[in-house]
């Protein structure tokens, strides 16, 4: 058995931590669906199936100084960057203490300045240009942080994607653009969305490296993002990464994907569940055994329970809080 993580310079401890974060991401996400189905929260949008790409990427970054500009499925990214389960639950319940938006935005509109998680909106792809702006700031200040931005493959067809890649390419800015390609934009499949079939291939047109990676393979994602980050820090400019992933759920709690997606397809995808793949690897290399697995599982359950309870009991914002922070106060 090859110990791939060692070759990448990852310790057993870090790899376990990655596993824990990935498990937390999944469990938290699953809990959100339960809460939605029982009528406690109005909306869920989910990263299930994409956690391999998210955790692999986040751990390849320097989470003490890099900036991330996540999109709505990036629960894994933000948990790795320091957001807590409570923070996430607070947002899903729309509670006052929610650090993302104080209950102003819908769930999964991540933001937390202390963790360098940059506030995002719902219109897709705008964040690519913001990430380029952060990277420009790094270059102007001669600092060695990178900015890391994600989006879906459907979103990569928006004009802002093109403008961002071109701008970053012209100025060779330290930005990593990772497209999480789950092959659907709501109901629209890749074939009707993306001419040429590959996002990564578009990088060439901007004179920058474009990498396709198996998003189910957390170690492989770690490797390519690490390389991209190293290159960026060395002043060698941006990288476009296309992580091939799957969306296990419907688009969101408002969607029913049976109208446009074969069940078989979803079942097949689940066979390549990044969480299972990592678990299997950890067991194969002897880092994880049954006992440890259960221990971690219990710990995660506790965290998710605590977060749910805490957020459910937390107070809502006051009605007039709607008036706050339009301008600097």
């Amino acid at each position, binding site marked *: 058995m090859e110990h791939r993580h060692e070759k990448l310079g990852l310790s057993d401890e870090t790899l376990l931590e990655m596993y824990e974060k990935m498990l937390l991401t999944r469990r938290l996400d699953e809990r959100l669906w339960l809460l939605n189905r029982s009528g406690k929260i109005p909306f869920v949008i989910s990263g299930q199936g994409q956690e391999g790409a998210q955790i692999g990427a986040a751990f390849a970054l320097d989470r003490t100084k890099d900036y991330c500009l996540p999109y709505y499925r990036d629960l894994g990214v933000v948990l790795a960057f320091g957001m807590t389960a409570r923070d996430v639950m607070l947002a899903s319940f*729309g509670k006052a203490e929610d650090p993302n938006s104080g*209950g102003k935005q819908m769930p999964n509109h991540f933001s937390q300045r202390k963790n360098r998680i940059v506030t995002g909106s*719902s219109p897709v792809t705008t964040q690519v240009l913001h990430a380029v702006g952060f990277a420009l700031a790094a270059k102007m200040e001669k600092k060695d942080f990178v900015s890391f931005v994600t989006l879906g493959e459907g979103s990569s067809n*928006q004009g802002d994607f093109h403008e961002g890649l071109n701008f970053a390419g012209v100025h060779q800015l330290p930005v990593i653009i990772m497209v999480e390609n789950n092959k659907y934009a709501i109901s*629209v499949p890749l074939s009707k969305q993306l001419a040429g079939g590959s996002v990564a291939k578009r990088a060439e047109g901007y004179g920058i490296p474009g990498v396709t990676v198996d998003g189910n393979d957390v170690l492989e994602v770690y490797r390519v993002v690490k390389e991209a980050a190293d290159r960026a820090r060395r002043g060698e400019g941006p990288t476009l990464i296309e992580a091939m992933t799957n969306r296990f759920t419907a688009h969101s709690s408002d969607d029913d994907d049976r*109208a446009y997606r074969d069940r078989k397809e979803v079942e097949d995808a689940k066979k390549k569940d990044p969480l299972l793949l990592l678990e299997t690897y950890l067991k194969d290399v002897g880092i994880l055994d049954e006992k440890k697995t259960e221990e971690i599982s219990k710990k995660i359950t506790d965290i998710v329970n605590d977060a749910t309870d805490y957020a459910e009991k937390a107070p809502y914002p006051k009605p007039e*809080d709607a008036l706050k922070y339009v301008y600097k106060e």
Partner: protein
Amino acid sequence: MIVSYIEAVKMAIREEMERDPKVFVLGEDVGKKGGVFKATEGLYEQFGEQRVLDTPLTESAIAGVAIGAAMYGFRPIGEIQFADFIMPAVNQIISEAARIRYRSNNDWQCPVVIRAPYGGGVHGGLYHSQSVEAIFANQPGLKIVMPSTPYDVKGLLKAAIRDDDPVLFFEHKKAYRLIKGEVPTDDYVLPIGKADVKREGEDITVITYGLNVHFALQAAEKLAEDGISVHLLDLRTVYPLDQEGIIEAAQKTGKVLLITEDNKEGSIISEVAAIISEYCLYDLDAPIMRLAGPDVPAMPFAPPMEKYFMMNPEKIEKAMRELAEY
């Protein structure tokens, strides 16, 4: 027959597609899925994927490609999934669609319809609740229709599709399933550019549009119990405004309450107020009253804040009584 607001949207599109092979639909998820609100449900099956076109996730292209096809001679109906996401298409709508007839001195025209669900009260937060009409309501060349009832939806959407100029057609997403009403199964169109009296009254005049027409009707019932009679004008077309209709309605009672779900400053009702203060100042028995959302960027997600922002019959009733007592 009695149908919902969204059913009326679908009826209008289907009938127009059956009538005229030049009519087609394009947008995100309009095909197999039938639209995220089901406005195009069944059309893909009926008309095929060429006429019910799932586009890439690109609003500027939805508008821009529709404009090209419209100049050629088609009658495209572009769907923007949420009005909030019309922003990337602003350049195509304002710089292009609105100016094509004028700039070509009538040589080209651009008969495009762009539909989008707007409005709040659906836990949609900042970016799934907005009213965006004011952004476009100062662009001659455009028409903006915002119907309130299923009957108006069908008649006005058909008129929009047949109109030889570009029309933005905003549908209140909370009305989609909430509002039902009688809709004739036969073919009819309603005039774009004309406001409609939804209730005759003598004491105060209320002018509004969209979902608020219903809230205002409910509030008017309450006032009627106390013998106060409300005259209610539904703008229906919010740009360009029906000046005559507005002036007549204002003069009728001399007390005017204007309502919008949008933020107050720079909204549609600002122009309504300006028209009234320009043409019938001396008919007024009270200052023009405006009831609107607060001037914050958009409607928040958390229920208490959403409720604080969102219009409702109670807020309207309160304002009506205040005005009546003035």
